């Protein structure tokens, strides 16, 4: 099973040049049960990462010095399995694409509700843990939907859903990376092969079909979410409470 227990707390490194944001994140993550450390620039972050072990890094994209994207590239090179999330203030797709291409697991737009940020951190951490096992035949259950790769079977609320082979492959890939953004080109080449990089409408048609079959309301998808201009992401596995006694998701 591809899941992590809800009570797991991790150690998060916050890298941002804005003191007020570091303070807000430090206090909030601390309250929610995470251990935190801080750095002002990418240059400061790298020695910290070497000296102690972290589960995730929150990296501001726009920092003095080497900058967020370059820092991300360097972190990815030195720590291939560490979860990296980029924080960006600009709603700029190029920044996001650049961040993902530099090896970030995800990006989050400032300002963000902390629930979303924590959920994204969890997904990224889960990714970094699961990539060690790498069991591609594991049965995945997210919400009402269960996917069994070995039997090529998809169920919603226990009812079998009929999917075409390509639809199944696309869904499998998205669910394997649940919670994380998958770029269009990555999905296309993963499911259709490396020659399909730019056939966007192709992908969109398949996503539309999948939504019709899986979502309660295809116009308001709960599972198969769109990341504008970037790609798609499947809803993360856990939507339950963040901390014991905290507000639950309804």
């Amino acid at each position, binding site marked *: 099973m591809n899941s992590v227990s809800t009570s797991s707390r991790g150690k998060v490194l916050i890298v941002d040049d*804005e003191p*007020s*944001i570091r*303070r*807000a*994140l430090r*206090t*909030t993550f601390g*309250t*929610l049960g995470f251990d935190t450390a801080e750095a002002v620039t990418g240059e400061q972050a790298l020695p910290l990462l070497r000296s102690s072990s972290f589960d995730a890094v929150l990296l501001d994209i726009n920092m003095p010095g080497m900058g967020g994207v370059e820092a991300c590239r360097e972190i990815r090179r030195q720590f291939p399995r560490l979860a990296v999330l980029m924080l960006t*203030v*600009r*709603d700029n*797709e*190029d920044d996001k694409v650049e961040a993902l291409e530099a090896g970030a697991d995800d990006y989050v737009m*400032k*300002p*963000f*509700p*902390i*629930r979303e*940020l*924590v959920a994204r951190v969890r997904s990224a951490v889960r990714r970094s843990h699961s990539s060690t096992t790498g069991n591609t035949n594991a049965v995945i259950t997210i919400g009402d939907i269960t996917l069994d790769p070995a039997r090529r079977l998809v169920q919603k609320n226990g009812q079998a859903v009929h999917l075409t082979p390509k639809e199944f492959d696309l869904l499998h890939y998205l669910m394997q990376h649940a919670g994380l953004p998958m770029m269009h080109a990555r999905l296309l080449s993963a499911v259709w092969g490396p020659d399909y990089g730019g056939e*966007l*409408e*192709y992908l969109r*048609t398949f996503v539309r079909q999948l939504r019709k079959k899986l979502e309660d309301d*295809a*116009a*308001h998808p709960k599972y198969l979410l769109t990341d*504008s*201009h970037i790609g798609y992401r499947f809803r993360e596995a856990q939507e339950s409470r*963040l*901390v014991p*006694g*905290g*507000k639950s998701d309804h």
Partner: protein
Amino acid sequence: MHSAAKAGLESTFGFAGRSLAGSAAVLAAAYVALRLQVNFSTTGFLDLLIVVLVAMLSGFWEATVTSLVALTCLNYFFVPPVHTFYVADPQNWVALVTFESTALLVSRLSIQMEKQARTAILERRGMEKLYELSRRTLLMDPQRLPGSQIVAQILDVTEVEAVALFDAARASEDMAGAAGADLEALARDTYLGDRNQDDPDGTTWRRLLRPGTSSIGAIVLRGENLSPLLADSIASLAAIALERARAFEKQSHAEAARQSEKLRTAVLDALAHAFKTPLTAIRTASSGLLEAGHLDPAQEDLVTLIDEESEKLNALSTRLLQTAKLEASETKLHKETVLIPQLIQDLLAEHSDQLGGHRTLVSISNQLCATYGDRELLGTAIMQFIDNAAKYSTPGSPIGIAVDDRDGEVVISVHNEGSEVRPEDRERIFERFYRSPGSNHRAPGTGLGLSIIKEAAEVHRGRAWVNSEKGKGTTFFLSLPRAEWRTQ
């Protein structure tokens, strides 16, 4: 009138004097010939020479008078019987007639050559002046008004006595030269009459200024030594100078507008960014408080309020950034072939909660209407129309959405009943921050939405406009270049 009479008198005296001088020369030649006992034919050649000289130095009529005097002399002193005006030998008749004809012919020819030479000199001088004029008009001060500079240069360089120019764009006249002549009004009339005209007296020349096909003003020249050619040339130089000045002005206006827009955009961008950092801290703190729990209901209510309002503030600054970027053409478009009916269907399904209870009537003439553009941006623009219609329409009335295929364009229209957009607002509502005076109390809004549509239309080489009629409601239109839809 005085001066004309005086000039006439002078020229009459001059004519008589020059004719007398010629005649005297002929008489002197006759006297010398008689003393030296030179014969008729030699004296005839001598007289011919004198006549030609008179023709070259004075003119045809003086030469004619001289030749007649010479003829008389020859007849009287040399043709037998001498000392009478009688000619006995018919051969001598022929000789005399030949002499007179040759004298007249040669004087005529020499006068023509002289005239041609003089015209050539005049033309060369005219050319030099035109060249000088063109050089000076090129050096005109672009900061000063062109009209007064052009007339001053024309007066300075050419031999006109007075010049007036009418600049149609400014509806202003400029005049230089001899005072008193009402040339300004004449220039204006020439422009209004749309016709070149040369006055019969040959001193006033009216010309339209046409740098291209349409006239941009008119010029009136007054002067003795002008030819139609010269007037035409001066007029075309003035036209070019005026056109150049106009183009320069237009360009500097556009440049100024671009600069101020750039500044505005930069300020907006900076503001929006400066908002985002504190907003991020506020939002992190408020949502963190909510997640941490342990709040009593009143506290939770207040923190929720902070959280929601900071999100609203964030949405506003995001929008500011969006328009600022669109106007600065900084947004990178992600273009693809977009099927408009499909897009509208998706939008309506996604945003059904924003329709405010209005029904939608969708009419699509061609299901394969497509455009090549940024799907996200087009979606935002169309949704803005629909949102607008929902806000301003009569409660309970339907919103009409239509997609039409017209002359290579896809036209999307959104109609609502009720409100009317005043004619004077129809352009301005697409400007950023503009809200028509009546709308301030009616519906919530920032005045940003329609400006996004306009920018979106422009970056797609399309257009956005509005039709509105009291009682019939308002229809917003967005037209986009049509693209071929490949069926897959």
